[in-house]
Every structure is written in C-alpha cells, then in structure tokens.
C-alpha cells in the first residue's frame, strides 16, 4: 500500500505516516479522522432517535437521558456531522487525494502548509472530543450556537462546553483555510502542460469553487466567534441587549457563513457524481461548461440567501421577500447541474456498478431535499414549518446525498486507486440498497411529523398533548427503526473495507476504463505520483468518441500523427 512511497524514498516512520507532506497520506489522515468522527456522530444519533421513540426509557448502552444531555447530543451531532465529517471527508480527503492526481501534479503547491492544516484539524478534533467530558458537559446551544443561549455560562449550562466548542470550530476553520488556499493555488498553477482550465475534471472545479466559497464566507463568522468568545470570557456585551448589543447580529454572521457552507459541502459531492456518471454511462458529461458556469453562479448566489434562516427571528419583514426570491433563484443553477447529470445518462450504456448506484442514489435523494427546500425558502410557508421536523427531514435529505451517498460513491470508485485493491462488488450492492431504503425510512416520516406541527429539539415529545397521538408515536418509531437499521447497515461497508484491504482483488491502474489523469498512475500511486510528467491533449470526458476502437480516450494519450483530430 503506502509502502510503495516508503520504498521509493526511504524516510522515517514518523515522516512517512505521521508528519507526512505527501498529499495522498494527508488525504488518508483526513479520511480516517472523518470516518472516526462519523462513527461518533452516528452513535449520537442512535441515542437521540431511541429517546424520541421511547421517551424517558433507558437506552441500551447509554441509560436515561436528561434535557441538558439531549440538547448537548443534538448540538454535537450537528456540529460533528457538518464540521468534522462532511468537511474532512468531502473536502479535505477527496481534494487532497484527487486534485494533484487529476491535474497531473506531483503534490500540492504548499506541502508543508498542507501537513500543518491536518494537524491543526487534528487538534481541533481533540478539543471538541474533550468538551464532552468537562464540567457542565458539551455545548448544548444547537450547532448554530446562537446567543444568548451560548452567550454566558449561566445559560449554556457550564463555562467550558461552549468555550471549547468555539475554540474547536475556530481551529477547524483555520485548518480549512490553509487547506483551501492550497487547493485553489494548486489547481491554478500546477496543472500539467496542455491542461487548460476547461480541461480540468469537474471534481477539481467543484473543489476549487467550494474552497473559494468557504474562504469568502467564513471570515465574518470568525470575527463573530471572536466577539462571542469575548462576551463569554471577558464579559463584553456584543450580543447582550442589556449592554446595547444585539443577539440577532450573531445569526447574521453565522448564516452569512452557514448557508454558503451548504454549497461548500454539496459541490464536492456533485463533483463525485460528475466523475462517476460519464464513466458508467460511457458518454461525455452533458453540458460541461454549463455545469461550470452554473457552479459559479450558485457560489455567488449562495452569499445572498442567508436571511431565509431568520424569517421568524425578528428581522425586518421587508427583507423577507428579497431573501425568498434569491433563495428560489439559487435553485435554478442547481437544477441546471442536476438536469445536466440526468441528461448525461440519456442513451448511455449504463453499467450499474456500485459507484454508479450510489451516484444515482445521490441524485434521487437530493431531488426530494431540493424540492422541499422551496417550502422553507418562501417566507409564507417557512413561518409554519420553521423549527419542525420538516426542517430536520429537509436538511438530512440535502446533506446525506453528498456526505453519505457521495462519500460511498467516491469510496467504491477511488478505493482501488487509494489502496490498490478492489472492493467486493456484491457486498457493495447490498450495502447500497439497505442504506437507500433505511435512509428513506428514517427521514420520510419526519416530513409528515413536521406537517403535523411536531417541533424539533424537544427531548420528550409526549410532554405535549398534541403530540401524544398514536400516529406521532408510530411515525417516531418508524424513524427510529430506520435510523438503527441504517447505522447497522454501515457495518457492511466497514467489513468490506477490512476484508478487501487484505484479500481484495489487486486493482489494475485503470479498472473502470476512465479518462482522467489519476487513472494513468499505478494503484496506489507512489511518491511523486507520475512516473513521467503527463501532457494533456483533451478534455476529461471523451467517452465513446467516433472513429476510435476503444470507448474511452485518456486525457494524456497523444493524438496519432496524421489522424484528423
């Protein structure tokens, strides 16, 4: 496996596996940390779901749960899944592994900065995990940490939980800024000779777009978090109305970042799909440039939709209509991307291999997430749906497609490149269908619960008379059965990985007959990636080109002399 690199350049164990500057090793470090945090976040959701189905009963493996603990669990589940699972896996791991390989570079532009980025991220992970065990428990003010709940120790249940949360998130942001600057610079400057911007695989475009969006949106929240920290530690009153401050200000700063963040996570997921669909349809991607332009427009629009999270927060009502309009508007470029993906399939020779299954699953699930977003983006309907399970169902339907389905699609697709072995295909199919069915069983009932007016973030729903009906209990039980089965289904994936790492079929350099440059390297690639520096002659998606016996045309294959094109 990675020993190929060690053979080529004999370096110490520490340099090769721990403080490595090799982008592939750093990608694996992010991947392992992200997966570990995914297991933590998944176990938290198990406790949450068990409580909701059987309020007040002892939960196997956890015990009885109190309101403060429940709030902490919900807060940490959200925080971990967004910042410590979606970000490290979809951005850091995939971008680190793929950008240099896809553009024909030996490594990132700043390898040492890259290493530092991971270790700052690792530190942030430790700080966040430590916060579970401090007096007063972990942060419990929601993953958005609105003041006044997060503003003083008196409201947040303890001095340390929220303070460590803020510190961990700040470190995480620093890590991803370092990573993002690296991704952008690398894609701009380290492209192989012949590769123009519009020859880059869409994955690279999407990762760069995500990094740029992150970079321009996170600053105000860093400033806002600094002010919140000063409120907590020094006793200033930036968010305290009694001192002349304004708690709504934090909501603006948070969502100015928080909404673009949705696209920061979504776009790399779309990137995965864009790479997989052409390979398993044996067709060029439909509307390559259209997808790039739509991505850029999505990125720009994502900066002017944030107040749709605050329709009932007491913002000026005149703001509601403009923000409703921009929110509906952003669904246009996103729909352009989705329809281009669907059009890619049209009359292709489709092979339902495991990466393709998960890519198609992403599209199917995301469609429902996107459509229900319209209910929440329009102020008139959002006022009813706000803070109900409809919102919970909606954002799980939008984020599980890129984060979970996208990650699995990417795993089944690039695992051979990363580790040099194929995953077991039959096990992968079972894993897909179980994940797909149980994901829907978990979250479809929550749309219904939201329609019925079921608020979220309440520890004991049966406390309210309106929620003490058999139908509510039935729907909650369905969701819990779905969630537990969904979590258990993931064992198949880990079993597959564990088995394949040792016993899997050895992977050829290009097992999927794909065009992009990463498939021209050995599986796994050694230190420096390419044996000879690649030269690029064409775009990344030239499948089934006319007048060629093979149905793919690698980017680096020199055109035959005398042949027309």
């Amino acid at each position, binding site marked *: 496996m990675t020993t190929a690199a060690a053979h080529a350049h004999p370096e110490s164990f520490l340099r090769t596996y721990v403080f490595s500057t090799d982008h592939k090793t750093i990608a694996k470090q992010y991947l392992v940390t992200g997966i570990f945090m995914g297991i933590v976040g998944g176990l938290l959701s198990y406790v949450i779901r068990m409580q909701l189905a059987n309020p007040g009963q002892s939960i196997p493996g956890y015990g009885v749960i109190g309101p403060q603990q429940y709030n902490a669990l919900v807060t940490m589940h959200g925080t971990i899944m967004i910042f410590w699972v979606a970000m490290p896996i979809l951005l850091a791991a995939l971008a680190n592994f793929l950008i240099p390989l896809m553009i024909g570079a030996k490594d990132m*532009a700043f390898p040492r900065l890259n290493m530092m980025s991971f270790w700052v991220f690792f530190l942030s992970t430790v700080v966040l995990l430590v916060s579970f065990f401090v007096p007063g428990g972990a942060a419990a003010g929601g993953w958005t940490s609105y003041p006044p709940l997060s503003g003083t120790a008196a409201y947040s249940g303890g001095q340390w939980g929220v303070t460590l949360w803020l510190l961990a998130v700040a470190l995480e942001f620093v890590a991803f800024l370092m990573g993002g*600057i690296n991704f952008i610079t690398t894609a701009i400057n*380290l*492209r192989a000779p012949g*590769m123009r911007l519009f020859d880059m695989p869409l994955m690279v475009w999407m990762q760069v777009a995500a990094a740029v969006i992150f970079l*321009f949106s*996170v600053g*105000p929240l860093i400033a806002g978090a*600094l002010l919140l920290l000063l409120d907590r530690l*020094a006793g200033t009153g930036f968010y305290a109305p009694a001192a002349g401050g304004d708690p709504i200000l934090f909501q603006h700063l948070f969502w100015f970042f928080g909404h673009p963040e949705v696209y920061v996570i979504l776009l790399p997921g779309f990137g995965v799909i864009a790479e997989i669909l052409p390979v398993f349809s044996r067709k060029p991607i439909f509307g390559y440039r259209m997808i790039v332009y739509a991505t850029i427009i999505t990125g720009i629009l994502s900066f002017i939709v944030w107040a749709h999270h605050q329709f009932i927060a007491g913002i000026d009502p005149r703001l509601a209509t403009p923000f409703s309009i921009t929110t509906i508007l952003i669904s246009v470029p996103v729909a352009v991307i989705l329809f281009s993906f669907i059009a890619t399939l049209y009359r292709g020779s489709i092979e339902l291999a495991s990466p393709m299954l998960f890519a198609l699953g992403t599209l199917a699930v995301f469609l429902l997430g996107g459509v229900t977003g319209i209910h929440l983006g329009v102020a008139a309907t959002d006022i009813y749906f706000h803070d109900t399970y409809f919102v919970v169902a909606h954002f799980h339907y939008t984020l599980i497609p890129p984060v979970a389905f996208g990650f699995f699609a990417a795993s089944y697709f690039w695992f051979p490149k990363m580790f040099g072995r194929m995953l077991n295909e039959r096990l992968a199919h079972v894993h897909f269908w179980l994940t797909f069915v149980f994901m829907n069983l978990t979250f479809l009932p929550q749309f219904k619960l939201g329609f019925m007016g079921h608020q979220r973030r309440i520890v004991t729903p049966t406390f309210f008379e309106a929620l003490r009906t058999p139908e509510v209990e039935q729907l909650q039980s369905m969701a819990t059965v779905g969630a537990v089965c969904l979590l258990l289904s993931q064992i198949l994936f880990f079993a597959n990985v564990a088995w394949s790492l040792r016993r899997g079929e050895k992977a050829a350099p290009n097992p999927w007959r794909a065009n992009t440059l990463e498939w021209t390297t050995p599986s796994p690639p050694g230190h420096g990636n390419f044996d000879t520096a690649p030269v690029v002659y064409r775009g990344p998606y030239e499948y089934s080109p006319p007048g060629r016996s093979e149905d793919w045309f690698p980017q680096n294959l020199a055109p035959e002399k005398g042949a027309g094109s």
Partner: protein
Amino acid sequence: MGTAAESGFREATEVPTGRLGMWWFLASELVIFGGLIATYLLFRWRHPEWGAESVHTINAAGAFNTLVLLTSSLTMVLAHAAVERGDLARAVRNLSFTFLGGVIFLVVKVYEYTHEIQEGFTPLTNLFWSFYYGMTGLHALHVVGGMVAMMVVRSAVAKGRDPQRVEFVGLYWHFVDVVWIFLFPLLYLSS
C-alpha cells in the same frame, strides 16, 4: 513556501505560486476584518452618541502610528526593490527598518491602552470601547504576526536563501497597513 519553484513545480499561469497563495490568504483575511468593520459600522449608525466616546481616543498617537506604518510600508517596498536588484544586504537592512516600525507602532499602542484604561475607558466600559479594544487588538496581533514572519524571512535572506519571500511578506505587511488606514478614521476620528 516559496520553495515551490525550486522543487520543480510547474507554474501554469506564470504567476509565482507563493504570490498566488499569499493573495488568496489576504482575501481570507480581508473578509475577517471586513465582517468586523461592517458589524461595527452597523452599530455605529444606530449609536450616534458613540461620537462622544471616540473623543477620548488619542488622535495624535493614532496619527503618529499611521505615519509610522506608512513609513514602514515604504521601507518594505525598498526591501523588495533591493531584492529585485539583487542587493540582499540592502534588503536585509530595509527589513530591519520595517521591523523597527512595527516595534514603534506597538509601543505607542501600549502607551495608548495604558492611558485610556487609567482614564477609566476599559473594554467593558461600553460597546464602543469593546469594539475599540477588540478591533485594534486583533490588528495588533496581525502586526505581531507580520513581524514574526518578517524575522523568519530576514534571517533566511541574510543567508542568501529565498529572497522571493520578501515580496510575499511585504504583501502581508501592506495589508496590515491598509487595515489600519480604515481603523484609524472609524475609531479615532469619527466624533
């Protein structure tokens, strides 16, 4: 980090990779200060009475510090120009002058803080002073960061290594300077 070219990396756009990285880094810094300044401005419009507070800042000290930072930016440019001509000794000397400018800036800032706190204007006095200490404090941290980076670059250039980094640390220093150009009128002069 400027070693990218030496280690054989390609520069597809002919812009040095280090300069490119620095500009993106500055973009990320810009939105941090941008968010903070926008927040302050929104509050400032809502509180016209803050004008009476900013009278208690020491305008002369602020003006002097503006001059110090502008002069240090000049010596920074001279350092860069010296590198372009290949005169590394002169570049090192100008980096030292720039560093000295940072030291003077911080000394004056410490004098101001001391004076203001003795007058009874602490970070907790009211929201204006919270903003004053918060924003100038964050800026001062950036000055310190720039000075540390400058020392690292200076000691490398003194040994004849990585002279191209003078330009990158210079970009950063000018940015810190520009932020101060915004903070000075907003916090000191807006009475």
